[in-house]
């Protein structure tokens, strides 16, 4: 079947809404079929199998390092429990402490579950403005970064064992000489941070060593956003978006729901404007213009695929359209040339009309990859639309070392010319992540001595003279400022596991020549921050994690006169990328970010929300591009850019702009550790300082190679035949129910159709009408597909990782997965997510077939697993229509290093091989809640028991509670008319139900959108 025919079949005339899961399903070529027949997973030698690789790992290092860890090590300094303050520690009762995770310029307030001095789970801190009680996948998985067995464990000099005393001794001698010459020849390369203490120390450093160089580099940052705002206003400002107030949002190449900074507040705000309780409610409208699918694009009501380089042109065209609709747009902001014909003018016109109609209640936001000129114009348009001060406010960037690629370039020049004698690298991994044109790894030899202060002896640390172990933030004292300026403390949950120091201590050492206690340094800073009684205030801060009311004041910037000249000097390209000169886009990976999380197994095995790939990056291409290049999924291609070349497997993505290739950063590390080494390809080798984010001039050449990828949904490109694709088309509308807001208003009961099973059983039903009856409701309308719940579940329930080869075989263990489906045509599809965990069926098909009664029903309506009783027939999994049961085909936790086992939740069994497991609705949390209530001689209150996925969901899409209580939140959600049970027609009576998805398309645009 040709693709054209396939597209015709998916044309909008064919009703009802058609879904498809992958490209393969639509596109069917004989080569592809041949590839399927090849049954690749057996012979694919390229696969790296951590299961077997881990065999070879000698645990000795970790065990020795942990010899002193047998008993708990609680910090000596006083920290205050967050929720419960027991007279003494009760073994088995977890405590919660507040701390903060610094992440570039961002900071996420956390509460950490700690079992007898051992932190096990990270959750957001309700009082912290950037996390608001939620956490994304990266934040939650950073617990494994603490327990990473491949962390640097001792000081090394030239690769040999050394001590901190030796280093202090070494530095104190140098220190004196630098003190005398004002720091001539001294340089620091740091990560970006927003921290009162570190900033104070940085100021001290600059005062002490006025001639020293300080560079700040982040491979993935908001640098362009700051530059754009600075060009527009003349000030260095941090934007704070409030999506909850925006009726219309236009996202330009921005994944504000997941990969851009401050994603938690954005998702929370966006969901607030999105949530609908009944057909009379209104909801916001999201327009997305982007080159490749992001989850933000998946949420879009209207999505336009456009090359990254065209986004600026699009914005200029929009500005003109706004101008025509009487929005104040200065002509000097706009390029002189005519609008390019490649952009849909009807789309822009209607978008402009929508923005004008919602002035001061709309928001234009551009992504961090877009250049400064786009951000400058975005600022100007938001200003003209009256959005500034309403949906977006600006604050000064306080106490921050903002990233500057330019400073790294300058530093490189200084290194090259031999001006730098001593180079401190404070965190980060520039030898791996610096732009390729700088050849930073080679420059490291030009300095007389280089000192890497980092958690791992990584690509950088293995090249420097000294490698000094850096403490994890959970072992450190420190502080941060979040995006709105709110100050919060980083307090340690555990004493450093290894012989490490934290950043505050290190910077103090550099500045003063002596190693102080970070606790004292931080308190010194906070002396000036805390108003009133310091000790009382400090205790409050330790308890809350944040300093109340410390947000910096909102600034109302005006447009700088220089904006026009800036925009004239940086015109938007009018042409688009072509076959001869393709556009390459470097994105942060949803698994490793910029490579820093590469050694975290949870994240490597977490399917990318859009591609569903694990354990690899790929060259993402649109299907037209792939067809014209003659390549298919998993074909190896040479990606060439300005004389540099790497080899990557192809992965075809629907809805991607033609002639773009999207590659994720953060892979192909060589010194990340046992998990992250040699996973995927290092795309930094193509990235230069002039084109950090996207550029043209890339060339793709097919090679003969094949590289097997492990994908969790479109297994083995199997869904290729027409029959299957038609079958899927027919069934999906019942699995994911979706309507437009207008359709919903006309047919409020659209979701509930045909899901009821005629109950004419011969036997009376078991009455679940007494006591607690647990149930869950998932609102598909606000679920963004961000993966946070999957990691929350993995962390809470000790779910093992299985490695690429096992994933390729279809044996991943996630209890909660995110099913992703597409509807519409290949070029302009819509994407939708559906989280599926155990549905806790009242008439559970799994229970009936278990020969040994290992899975049974309890009186509270839960389908419970007795691991001890399980024999492992796998019959239950076969008979589960949702396929949510997971079998331990091997002893997956056997090779988990001793230290990584410390991240295990002691309240949950670690399952042995041969045992079936599945979502339990966090039974341990239910029991804890019931115990607490029983001790207080009362019923469990609604909202008192919060399951892990629900707890972390940034959009509150998941609600759990007692369905026997008509006033509980979950009961109210289930009473909504959008409620439906997945496959409820099988009479499984699932306790989890879904609220149907809605989209709110612009009625004027609805037709053209479908036209694609």
């Amino acid at each position, binding site marked *: 079947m040709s693709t054209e025919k396939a597209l015709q079949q998916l044309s909008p005339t064919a009703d009802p809404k058609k879904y498809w*899961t992958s490209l393969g399903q639509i596109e069917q070529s004989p080569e592809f079929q041949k590839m*399927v027949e090849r*049954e690749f*997973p*057996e012979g694919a030698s390229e696969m790296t199998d951590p299961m077997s690789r881990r065999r070879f790992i000698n645990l000795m290092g970790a065990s020795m390092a942990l010899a002193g860890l047998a008993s708990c090590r609680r910090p000596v300094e006083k920290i205050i429990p967050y929720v419960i303050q027991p007279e003494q520690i009760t073994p088995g009762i977890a405590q919660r402490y507040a701390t903060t995770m610094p992440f570039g310029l961002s900071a996420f307030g956390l509460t950490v579950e700690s079992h007898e001095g051992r932190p096990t789970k990270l959750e957001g801190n309700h009082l912290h403005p950037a996390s608001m009680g939620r956490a994304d996948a990266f934040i939650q998985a950073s617990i494994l970064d603490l327990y990473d067995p491949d962390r640097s464990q001792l000081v090394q000099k030239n690769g040999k064992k050394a001590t901190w005393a030796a280093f202090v001794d070494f530095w104190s001698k140098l220190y004196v000489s630098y003190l005398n010459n004002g720091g001539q020849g001294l340089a620091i390369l740091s990560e970006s941070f927003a921290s009162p203490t570190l900033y104070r120390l940085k100021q001290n450093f600059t005062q002490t060593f006025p001639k020293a160089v300080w560079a700040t580099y982040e491979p993935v940052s908001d640098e362009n956003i700051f530059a754009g705002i600075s060009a527009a206003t003349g000030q260095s400002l941090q934007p704070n978006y409030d999506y909850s107030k925006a009726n219309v949002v236009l996202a330009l190449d921005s994944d504000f729901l997941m990969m851009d900074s401050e994603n938690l507040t954005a998702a929370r705000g966006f969901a607030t404007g999105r949530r609908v309780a009944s057909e009379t409610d209104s909801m916001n409208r999201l327009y997305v213009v982007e080159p490749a699918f992001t989850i933000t694009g998946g949420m879009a009501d209207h999505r336009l695929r456009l090359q990254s380089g065209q986004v600026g042109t699009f914005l200029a065209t929009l500005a003109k359209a706004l101008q025509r609709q009487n929005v104040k747009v200065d002509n000097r902001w706009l390029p002189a040339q005519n609008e390019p014909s490649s952009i849909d003018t009807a789309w822009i016109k209607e978008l402009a009309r929508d923005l004008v109609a919602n002035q001061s209640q709309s928001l234009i936001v551009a992504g961090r990859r877009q250049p400064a000129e786009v951000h400058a114009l975005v600022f100007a348009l938001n200003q003209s639309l009256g959005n500034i001060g309403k949906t977006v406010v600006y604050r000064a960037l306080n106490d921050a070392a903002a990233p500057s690629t330019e400073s790294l370039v300058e530093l490189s020049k200084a290194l090259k010319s031999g001006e730098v004698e001593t180079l401190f690298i404070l965190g980060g991994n520039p030898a791996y992540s610096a732009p390729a044109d700088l050849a930073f790894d080679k420059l490291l030899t030009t300095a007389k001595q280089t000192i890497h202060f980092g958690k791992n002896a990584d690509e950088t640390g293995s090249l420097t003279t000294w490698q000094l172990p850096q403490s994890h933030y959970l072992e450190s004292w420190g502080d941060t400022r979040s995006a709105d300026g709110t100050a919060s403390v980083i307090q340690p949950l555990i004493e450093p596991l290894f012989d490490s120091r934290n950043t505050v201590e290190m910077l103090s050492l550099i500045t003063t020549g002596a190693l102080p206690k970070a606790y004292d340094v931080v308190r010194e800073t906070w002396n000036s921050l805390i108003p009133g009684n310091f000790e009382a205030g400090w205790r409050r801060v330790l308890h809350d994690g944040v300093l109340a009311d410390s947000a910096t004041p909102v600034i109302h910037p005006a447009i700088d006169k220089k904006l026009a000249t800036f925009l004239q000097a940086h015109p938007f390209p009018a042409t688009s990328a072509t076959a001869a000169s393709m556009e390459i886009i470097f994105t942060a990976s949803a698994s490793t970010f910029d490579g820093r999380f590469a050694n975290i197994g949870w994240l490597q095995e977490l399917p990318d929300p859009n591609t569903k790939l694990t354990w690899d990056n790929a060259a993402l291409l649109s299907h037209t591009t792939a067809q014209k290049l003659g390549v298919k999924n998993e074909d190896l291609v040479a990606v060439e850019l300005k004389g540099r070349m790497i080899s990557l497997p192809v992965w075809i993505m629907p809805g991607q702009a033609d002639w773009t290739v999207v590659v994720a950063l953060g892979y192909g590390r060589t010194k990340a550790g046992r998990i992250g080494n040699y996973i995927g390809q290092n795309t930094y080798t193509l990235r230069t300082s002039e084109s950090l984010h996207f550029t043209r001039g890339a060339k793709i050449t097919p090679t003969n190679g094949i590289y097997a990828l492990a994908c969790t*949904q479109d*297994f*083995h490109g*199997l*869904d290729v*035949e027409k*029959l*299957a694709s038609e*079958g*899927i088309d*027919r*069934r*999906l509308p019942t*699995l994911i129910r979706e309507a437009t807001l207008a359709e919903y208003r006309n047919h409020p009961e659209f979701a509930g159709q045909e899901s009821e099973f005629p109950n004419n059983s011969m036997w009376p039903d078991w009455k679940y009408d007494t006591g607690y009856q647990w149930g869950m409701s998932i609102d598909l309308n606000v679920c963004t597909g961000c993966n946070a719940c999957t990691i929350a579940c993995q962390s809470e329930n000790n779910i093992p990782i299985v490695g690429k080869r*096992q994933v390729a*075989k*279809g*044996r*991943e263990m996630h209890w909660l*997965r995110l*099913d992703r*489906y597409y509807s519409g045509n290949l070029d302009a599809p819509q994407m939708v997510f*559906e989280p*599926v965990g155990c549905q806790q069926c009242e008439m559970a*098909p799994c229970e*009936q*077939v*278990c*020969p*040994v*009664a290992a899975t049974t029903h309890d009186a509270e309506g839960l389908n419970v697993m007795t691991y001890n*009783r*399980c*024999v*492992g*027939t*796998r*019959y239950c*999994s*076969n*008979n589960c*229509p*949702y*396929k949510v049961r997971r*079998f*331990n*085909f*091997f*002893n997956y936790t056997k090779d988990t290093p001793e230290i990584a086992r410390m991240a295990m939740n002691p309240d949950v069994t670690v399952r*042995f*091989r*041969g*045992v079936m497991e599945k979502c339990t609705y966090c039974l341990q949390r239910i029991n804890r809640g019931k115990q607490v209530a029983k001790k207080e001689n009362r019923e469990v209150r609604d909202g008192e028991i919060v399951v892990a996925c629900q707890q972390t969901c940034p959009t509150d899409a998941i609600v759990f509670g007692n369905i026997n209580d008509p006033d509980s939140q979950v009961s109210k959600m289930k009473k909504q008319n959008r409620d439906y049970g997945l*496959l409820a027609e*099988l009479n499984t009576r699932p306790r989890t139900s879904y609220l149907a998805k809605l989209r709110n398309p612009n009625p004027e645009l609805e037709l053209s959108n479908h036209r694609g």
Partner: protein
Amino acid sequence: MKTIEPNRSPSEIAVSAHGALESPLITGNQTFHSVTEKIAGILERKTPKGWYVGFSLAVSLLMLLVGTVGYLVWEGTGIWGVNNPVGWGWAIVNFIWWVGIGHAGTLISAILFLLRQQWRTSINRFAEAMTLFAVICALLFPGIHVGRMWVIYYFFPIPNQMSMWPNFRSPLLWDFFAVGTYFTVSLLFWYTGLIPDLATMRDRAKSRMKKIVFGLLSLGWRGGNRQWQHYELSYLILAGLSTPLVLSVHSVVSTDFATSIIPGWHTTIFPPYFVAGAIFSGFAMVMTLALIARKIFGLEHFITLNHLEKMNKIMLVTGSMVGYAYIMEFFIAWYSGNEFESFAFINRAFGPYAWAYWTMFICNVLLPQLFWFKKIRTSIPIMFTMTIFINIGMWFERFVITVTSLSRDFLPSSWDYYIPTIFDVFTFIGSFGLFFTLFLLFLRFLPMISMAEVKGVLPQADPHYGHDHASKKGGAA
């Protein structure tokens, strides 16, 4: 071969033994003595070299099985190709296949016995032995396919430290009882039938060892009138007991699938369809083995073309029944109007496993139709080839049912393809090692044809034998 008795024309024997015109059951003018000589003689002669070759081959395969199972216990179920949607792979396919093969033995022995089909006597002994060995092979698989073999005793309804019964609602437990019962009754039935022959062996035994072993095994059989009376009665009762079991075992096995909710499994036609399929495959396997044994041991007079043709007819009937079931499944899937149901069957025939489906369909439905022609029905090379194809086809039937239904069930997001590993192959091939080891031991140490029963269908056994004729010869050998 020497015959002591005078020649009689085969047609006369047939007329006198059955009172009807039919081709004779036993040819070559056998007498009671010649039967004993022929069959017991096989065991008393020096072991042929060929047996050693076959036996060492079988034992090598058995060692492969032992090794693979050892590795399985050591490493885990993951060495096989099973994955998340496809929780059951070759192990379960092999289980059903072997159980199916194990059907013909008891069917031949019991049902045909009750129906007074005397042609069964030549083949029932080794058909029963085959049944037992096939069931042993079958029982191996549910035992090793579970994740934790060391707690398999949780299946047993015995008092235990957990004070727990197994789940009587689970078809797997029914399986356990059904196959267990079938095995026990089949064993008893087989052993009861063996007793007179064991006594013959004891009587003919020359070595002390053989005397003791056969003496113990023959349970003091003297061949007295009373003993024969008791024997006949108990044999009849056991035949009566086994008969419903023949039907129940595979019906129960089919409930593993039929009671589930997976499209392609959830089908009411399964019990009769499985039984027909089991008889079909069982007869095919009996034929395969019979044809080989007949050739090697020169049993052409005992297993005659007449027997073979009758069995071919049964295969034609059961094959057509199976074909009817295949077609009916499609009809019902369409008639139900259920999207999932119809997809499951279309996917079977035209999806990624279409190759398996059409292998099954050709082998099981189309090829046996050739048995309508007498020429084909009576051609030994053709029927041998056919039985091999039927066995392959029936293995694929179980594969198609088990794997295709699981690989694509309700939610497309969980669909996956199942690819067996080398260890799946090893376990399957290894089970042949177990089967043939047992079978070759049986051929070497026990009479492969029931001497007592064959004698019973000889014309001489007829009480009226010779009364209408001048000759009084032909009494006891």
